[in-house]
C-alpha cells in the first residue's frame, strides 16, 4: 500500500439483502491512487455487492464509503449518478456496450456524458487497444475480447479517478483474457487511476499490486495457492 491518501476507503461497511441475509459485514479496506487491487472470493461471498457499493450503484446499510474524498452515504440518487459519471468508471463481465452505437461512439460515450470528451485521448486509447480498424463496427459484429476492449476503452476515455472492474475477463478465453488484462493494467498505470478488480482467477490476482479475499461477506486471509 502507498502512503498517499486513499482513493477509495470502506470503513466497517455492511449490506443485507431483503430477506435478512447479510452479504457484507464489517468490511474495511483502502485503494490508493495508482494502486491496483484484486478482490477474490467464492461465489456469493459479496464481491459484486462490494463493487456495486464502491461504484455508487447501491447504498450500504452501515459503515462509510469514501470515493476521492466524497462520502457516498450523504449522496442522493442524483449525487450518486454524478459520482459514477465524473469520478468512477465501471467495466462489467457482460461488457454492457450500447448495441445501437458503433465502436467510436461507444468509446467516447462515458467521456461525453461526463462533459470532458477528448478526441485525441480517445483516439490514443483506441490505438492502444487495437480498435482503430473497427471504429465503425457495432458491438454485435465484434468478438467477446474486442467488445471487452471497447468497454475498457470507454471507461478509460472518461479519465476516471477510480476504475472498478467486475470479472472483466470472465467471458474471454485465456489468450484474449491475458491481452485484455495487459491493456487494462497498462492504461490504469499510465493514467494514475486506482483499480479494484473482482476476479475468480488467482493468476490475475497475483499480477495486481495487492490481493484481498472475501469469504462469507468478510475480508479473510488470501487462501494458499493449492487451495484454489
Amino acid at each position: 500500500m502507498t502512503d498517499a491518501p486513499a482513493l477509495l476507503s470502506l470503513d466497517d461497511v455492511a449490506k443485507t439483502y431483503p430477506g435478512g441475509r447479510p452479504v457484507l459485514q464489517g468490511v474495511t479496506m483502502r485503494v490508493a491512487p495508482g494502486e491496483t487491487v484484486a478482490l477474490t472470493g467464492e461465489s456469493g461471498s459479496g464481491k459484486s455487492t462490494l463493487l456495486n457499493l464502491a461504484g455508487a450503484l447501491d447504498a450500504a446499510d452501515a459503515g462509510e464509503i469514501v470515493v476521492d474524498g466524497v462520502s457516498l452515504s450523504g449522496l442522493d440518487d442524483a449525487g450518486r449518478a454524478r459520482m459514477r459519471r465524473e469520478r468512477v468508471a465501471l467495466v462489467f463481465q457482460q461488457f454492457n456496450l450500447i448495441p445501437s452505437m458503433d465502436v467510436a461512439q461507444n468509446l467516447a460515450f462515458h467521456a461525453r456524458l461526463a462533459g470532458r470528451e477528448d478526441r485525441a485521448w480517445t483516439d490514443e486509447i483506441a490505438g492502444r487497444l487495437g480498435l482503430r480498424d473497427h471504429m465503425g463496427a457495432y458491438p454485435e459484429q465484434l468478438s467477446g475480447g474486442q467488445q471487452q476492449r471497447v468497454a475498457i476503452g470507454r471507461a478509460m476515455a472518461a479519465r476516471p479517478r477510480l476504475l472498478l472492474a467486475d470479472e472483466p475477463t470472465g467471458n474471454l478465453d485465456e489468450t484474449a483474457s491475458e491481452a485484455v488484462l495487459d491493456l487494462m493494467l497498462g492504461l490504469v498505470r499510465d493514467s494514475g487511476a486506482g483499480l479494484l478488480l473482482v476476479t475468480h482467477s488467482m493468476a490475475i490476482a497475483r499480477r495486481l499490486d495487492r490481493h484481498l479475499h472475501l469469504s462469507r461477506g468478510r475480508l479473510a486471509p488470501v487462501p494458499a495457492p493449492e487451495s484454489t
Partner: protein
Amino acid sequence: MRRAILAALWSHWRRHPVQLLTLLVGLALATGLWSAVQAINAEARASYARAEAQMGGAGLAELHAPSGVIPLATYVALRRAGWQVSPVLEGPLRHGGRVFTVMGVDLLTHPPLPAIAESGADIAPVEALGAPGRLFARPGDAAALAGRDGLPPVVATEAVPPGLILTDIGAAEAVLGRPGEVSRLLVLPEQPLGRAPLNEVAPDLVEVAPEGRADTARLTDSFHLNLTAFGFLSFAVGLFIVHGTVGLALEQRRGMIRTLRALGAPLGTITRLVAAELLALALIGGLAGLALGFLLAGLLLPDVSATLRGLYGAPVEGGLSLRPGWVASGLAMAVAGTLAASAASLGRLARMPLLAGAGSRAWSLRPRGWRMMAGAGLVLIGGGVGAIALFDGLVAGFVFLGGLLMGGALLLPPALALVLRLAAGRARGLVAQWVWADMRAQLPGISLALMALLLALAANIGVGTMVSSFRLTFVGWLDQRLVSEVYVTARDDAQGVAVAAWLETRADAVLPIRSAEIRYAGAPLFVYGIVDHPTYSENWPLLDALPGVWDRVVAGDGILINEQLARREGITPGEEIVLAPDWRMEVVGVYSDYGNPTGQAITALDVLLRHVDGVPNQRFGVRVPPDRATALAQDLRAAFDLPPRAVVQQAGVKAQSLAIFDKTFVVTGALNVLTLGVAGFAILTSLLTLWTQRLPQIAPVWALGLTRARLARLELLRSVALAAMTAVLALPLGLVLAWALLAVINVEAFGWRLPMHLFPLDWLRLFALAIIAALIAAALPARRLGRLPPAQMLGVFANER
C-alpha cells in the same frame, strides 16, 4: 450530458428503422383516420354556419303558424300593433329533376344579407325589389335554372348556399305561385316598448326561440356523432400499434438504459428525454397523419355531402379547406394518444431499479396478470351496461359501446391463454406440445395486435350486420311503401287535374300524393292526405295500431304518424295531437319511415284540404296491372309532353332509393375497411418487432432437429391459429355491437329501431379476410426464418454464452 443520452436513445431508432417506421405509420394512421373524420365534420358544420350567416336572421326568434302558412292579414296586424317583424316565404321549386328551395325575404326590413351584399353583382336595389326582381343562386344552380321560362333574371353568386334560391318576397310569391302568403316572421332585434302581446294580436302564432328551432346543425348532430365514433375507433386501433411499438422499443432499450445509468446518467433525465423523444415522434407522425387525413377527407367528402343532402337536405359544399384549429386538434390528439399509449411503458421506465436484470419483462405476463386483465375487462363491460341501464341518450349508448369494445378487447388475451393452456394439455407429440407452449409464450407480445384485430373484426361484424339489416328492412319497407306501378308528377295543379282525369279510365286506381308542411313542436311536419283504397290497408308498414285503423283514417277520424315523430315526442296510439288550434286528431297508428329525418303524418285527404289551403295536386300513384305499366307510362308522357323523370315506374323509384341508401353508407364502409387494414398492419408490425425476440426461442428447437422450413411453416400456422381464434371470439362481440347499434344508437340518432338480421356468409367472408391478413402478416417473418443462415442461428448460442 443530455446530448450524449439523446444520441444513445436515438441510435436505437437508427439501428431499428422498421420499428421507427412502424411507430410513425401507426401514429399517422391513427391521426389520419381521426382527423379525416374531423375535417369532414368541421367542413359540414362550417357549411351550415356559413349558410345560416349568409341568410342573416341567425339568432333571431321567429313566429310560426302551426298550419305552416301565416295569412298576410296577420302580418299586417302585427306591424300595426308595433311588432317589428320581417316576413319570409319559403317553398320548393322543382326543375330538371332537382328540388331547389326558394327563400323570399323582404329586402327592406330583413336583417343585412351577406349573401346579397357579398354577391359581387352590381345590382341597384330597385332592380332586386321591382318587377321582375332578381334571383340569387350559386353559379352551378344558376346554370341549372338558365332557360327556365317565367323566372326573373338569375344572379350567380358564391355567397348563397347550394340548392337555395334567394330573392325578394314579391318575386318569391310569383315563382312559387303563392301570393299573399308568409311562411314565417323574423322578430327583429329592435322592438318598441309597450307593444301588444302576441296572444292578443295573433293568437294562432307561436314564438320560437332560435335555440328551439330544429336547424340543420342540430338535425345532423347524430350523423356527425356517428362519424366521430367511427373516427375514434380507428384512432384507438391505430394507438394499439403505437402502444405495442413504444413498449417494445423501451423493453429492447432496458439494457441500454441500465448501462446509461451505470455510467452516471440520472434516471429522471433519461425518463424526461424518452418522453421528449416520444413527443417529437408524435408530432412527426401527427403531421404525416394530418396530411393523410386531409387527403382522405378530400376523397370521402363528396359522398358525405351527398349523404347529408339526401338525408337531411343539409347544404354542404364539395371543397375542403385547411383550418388551423383542425391542425392543432389533430396534433393534440397525436400527442395525447402517444402519451396515453406510452404511459405504462414510461411508468415502468421511471420505476426501473438500477440493479435489476436487463432482460425483457414485457413478455413475462404471469397468470395473475391475465386475471387482472380479465377483471379490468369485466369492469369495463359492467360500466358500459350500467351506463345504458341508468341513462338514456346517445352519449350513454356510446359509453356502452366503448365499454363493451374495450372490455371485450381486454378479455381476449386471458381467453386465448386459457384456450392455449387447454390445447397444450391435450396435445400429443413433442412438436405439438412445443407449438402450443410457444404460442402461449408468444401471446403477451402479440396480444396487443390481436386486440386491435378483435376490435376491427367486431366493428366490421357489428356495423356490417347493422347496415345489412338496415338494407334488408329498407328493401322490404320499399316494397310495402312503393306499391303503385307508376308515379307521375304534373307540372302544375291544372295539369294534375287533367292527368287524373285522363287516368280515370285507363288505370285501376289513381292515388293522389298530396302533402303540406306544417309546424309541430317547433319542427317541420309533413302531413299527407290519402283517399280510401285497399292499397294502403293491404301494404302500408304499421308498427303499432288501434283496431280498425284504416277505416278510422279514411273516415277522417284518426291520423297515422311516423316512427320518428312517435319516438321524438313520445306519442303512442290513442293519444291526441294538436296540429293547429282547430285541428286535433287522435293518433291511431305508427308506421316505419326509414331514411326520413323529419316528422310525417297521414290522414284523410278531405281532412288535410279542410285545414290547409293550397295543397299542391301534382303527384299521383297509379295502379295498373304490372304488364301494362310501361305502356301507360309512355302514353302518359306522350299525352302531356312530360319529361322522362316526371313519369317513373316502381322499379325506377326503388333503384333510385336504394342507390341513395347505399351512398349513405359509403363512408361507413370505407372506415370499416381502413380499420381492418390498420389491424392487419398491427399484426405485421408485431410479428416483425417480435422477430428479434423469436430467434432465441426458435434456435434451440432448430438445433434439436427441426428444419428451418418446418419452423417457418409452424410460424405461419401459429399466426393463422391465433387470428382464427380471435376471429371466432370477435363474432359474439360483433353481434352485441350490432344489437347496440340497431336498438340503441339508431333509435337515439335517427329515431327508428330496426329488426336485426344475421348474415353468416358475411361472417365467413370476414373470417377468411382475417386469416388472409394474418397469413400476409406472418409471411415475411416466416420467409425470413426459412432462409435464415445457420450461422445466425448459431449466433444465438454464442450471444447467450
